């Protein structure tokens, strides 16, 4: 990476800010998903796909990816500036999360030249939507036991089995797929391989699953003699576990290289504070109730601690004892706080807490209840909180495996 000229960077930031100020649609006329896991209607999908494409064309997505693959070829600081501007102007989320944040950086790191040329640009432009086929009905947390089979047949593999909870499965053109190419290995991990699987291939079927919110968000994906091209293998045959683990590092943000932007805009403690400030009960501001006030202070302290944790990881002397501690624990801390916070928000709304989305008398159109229910997407997806606690206990605190 070339060095950064502060003047160029400042100009770029200013342009980005102006661009987002002008181009962020104020009110699209329907409820926008807060995360990429909440895309439930074609209207939402089309809107977000156009939005991502527009941001990329303006040069504010993938700015630090190589030019040859559709990126901007600039230092990372430029993309960071663009992301900041996006956040400041409250732009909608980037839709193609799995492509931008995990498949993309993974291909940049481990993909063949052909794979990079074939896929990276489509990820950035949102032309090709990506999904992830890791979890199976019988194997979620215990991913290493995945049973979906892939059997070699000349220049391709024949895939049979089923994946589940496939976010964006209905829209995806490609899937990063973890499948078993050898069921006879001594260690279950050594029989797994990692594929770039075309979702439009014959024998691939997606069935929508309705979420706890009543909306559609993910699918179950069935494979019946579906062909996965052998040149879509990432890493060697039988080396899929390592690639999958690397993918999870990108997914959980423990490793950088993502295309930029953000893929969720969950409400934070400051938003809930704003709700608390305008909420009254029996004519009195709800924050005058000392028990409510105490809980609100607790959340403000907690969100502040998470912000400070992030700042502290930039000071090597202050994380010297356990350098991986905060990065590995941040998903656990952030997602669990968000779940409890949204629960608190629902309770803040008092009697209206009984209402749900679309009820005219609901507080903020029932947003808080929906947020709370959706918050479990993050405490379950990407590795459950219990699995995260195991990871912190074992990899940060040195405890033996459970």
């Amino acid at each position: 990476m070339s060095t950064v000229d502060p003047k160029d960077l400042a100009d770029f930031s200013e342009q980005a800010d102006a661009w987002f100020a002008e181009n962020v649609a104020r009110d699209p006329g329907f409820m926008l998903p807060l995360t990429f896991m909440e895309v439930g209607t074609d209207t939402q999908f089309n809107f977000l796909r156009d939005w991502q494409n527009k941001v990329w064309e303006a040069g504010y997505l993938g700015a630090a990816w190589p030019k040859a693959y559709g990126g901007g070829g600039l230092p990372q600081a430029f993309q960071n500036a663009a992301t900041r501007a996006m956040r400041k102007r409250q732009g909608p989320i980037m839709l193609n999360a799995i492509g931008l944040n995990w498949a993309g950086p993974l291909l940049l790191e481990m993909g063949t030249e052909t794979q990079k040329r074939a896929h990276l640009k489509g990820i950035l432009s949102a032309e090709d939507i990506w999904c992830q086929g890791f979890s199976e009905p019988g194997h979620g947390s215990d991913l290493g036991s995945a049973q979906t089979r892939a059997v070699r047949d000349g220049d391709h593999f024949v895939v049979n089995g089923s994946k589940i909870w496939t976010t964006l499965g209905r829209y995806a053109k490609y899937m990063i797929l973890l499948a078993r190419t050898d069921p006879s290995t001594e260690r279950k991990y050594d029989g797994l391989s990692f594929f770039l699987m075309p979702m439009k291939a014959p024998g691939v079927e997606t069935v929508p699953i309705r979420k706890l919110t009543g909306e559609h968000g993910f699918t179950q994906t069935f494979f019946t003699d579906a062909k996965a091209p052998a040149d879509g293998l990432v890493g060697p045959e039988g080396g899929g576990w390592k690639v999958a683990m690397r993918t999870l590092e990108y997914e959980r943000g423990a490793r950088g290289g993502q295309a930029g932007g953000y893929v969720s805009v969950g409400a934070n403690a400051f938003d809930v504070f704003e709700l608390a400030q305008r909420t009254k009960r029996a004519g009195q501001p709800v924050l005058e109730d000392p028990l409510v006030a105490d809980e609100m202070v607790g959340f403000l302290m907690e969100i502040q601690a998470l912000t400070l944790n992030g700042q502290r990881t930039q000071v090597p002397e202050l994380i010297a004892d356990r350098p991986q501690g905060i990065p590995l624990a941040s998903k656990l801390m952030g997602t669990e706080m968000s779940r409890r916070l949204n629960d608190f928000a629902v309770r803040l709304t008092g009697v209206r807490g009984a209402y749900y989305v679309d009820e005219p008398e609901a507080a903020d159109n029932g947003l808080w209840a929906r947020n709370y229910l959706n918050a479990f997407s993050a405490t379950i997806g990407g590795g459950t909180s219990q699995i995260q606690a195991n990871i912190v206990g074992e990899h940060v605190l040195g405890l033996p495996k459970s």
Partner: protein
Amino acid sequence: MKDLGRIGFSEDQATLLDVATDFCQRRSPVATVRRLMEAEAGHDAAVWAELGELGWLGVAIPEAYGGSGLGLAEVVPLVEQMGRRLMAGPFVSTTLAAQALIAGGTEDQKREALPRIAAGEPATLALAELDTDWEPDAITCTATRQADRRLALSGGKVLVTDAAEARRIIASVRIDGEPALVLLTPEDLPAGALRRETVIDETRRSFALTLDGIVLDPDRRLDPDRTAAALEHIHLAANLLAAADMVGGTQACIDYTLDYLRTRTQFGKVIGSYQALKHPIVDAYTRYEQARSHLYSAAHCFNEQGTGEIAVRMAKASADVAYSFAADRAIQFHGGFGFTWDCDAQLYRRRAIWHAAQFGDAAFHRKKLARLLF
């Protein structure tokens, strides 16, 4: 939303953290802590002398008064590492008494006292009284002007740490109904004025101080114009340093428990493999990291803003919760051994309780924060 603070870390903090980590580990192993606990003096005079030589007593004292002119932010890593090793001695009492003089003393008082404090003369504060809350102006002790203009003191102070060896004691009283600070020396105290208290943290030396019968010259009063600011400053400084001690202690307590969880076997398995223990200790650990982040934000804000009230209160509240939880679970997770004197878990739990009882517990500070933020 008001400014909640941010992390900043100076080169001086980094150097002092490094030196203190090593020094406290070497000079305060837990066997030493336990030996000193049983000894009357409660700390090691040689170590105290070394602290003076290292310049630690003058870190936050201005250069003009014999210190090195840094701030309390630079004292924080020292106290954090002392807390981590449960190190005994009047370091914090003395540092806070110096802060009281810096914030509220007259020029003469500062000139006389601060260089001596920096050179190693212990000092302390006499602020707390029984059955009040932790507001710095919750004072019932009085000083009454006599005909000869001297001040006659009355009332009782408690939790006067290290009073037996303090060469100076800064006490809060009311004069004509208004809060005031006065400077006492051991020579002012009638026989029997100090009674050693039995306190939960046995590494401490703490005393009840009876003020009745003490008469002071008028020049012992600290600057009346700065009393309120000084009381506020001391309150926040005390909470900042308490948070530092607590964060260090939390870390040590977690490490101590982890050692046991990694080695103790039951049902043919190392007990740290049981999630009933693993997940709560992870919980303790994440609270610790959050408390430490609050601490270094508070340290930075204290230097930057003069007191950094919001960040300091968050730091103390967060440290109280983290330390209490970690130490409470430490006892439980040691099983029958956890119930014994020899298990260090009780040392940490007692110290966490001690800190919660002084200068405000988590609930007190959260209540203050609600008023500051809403």
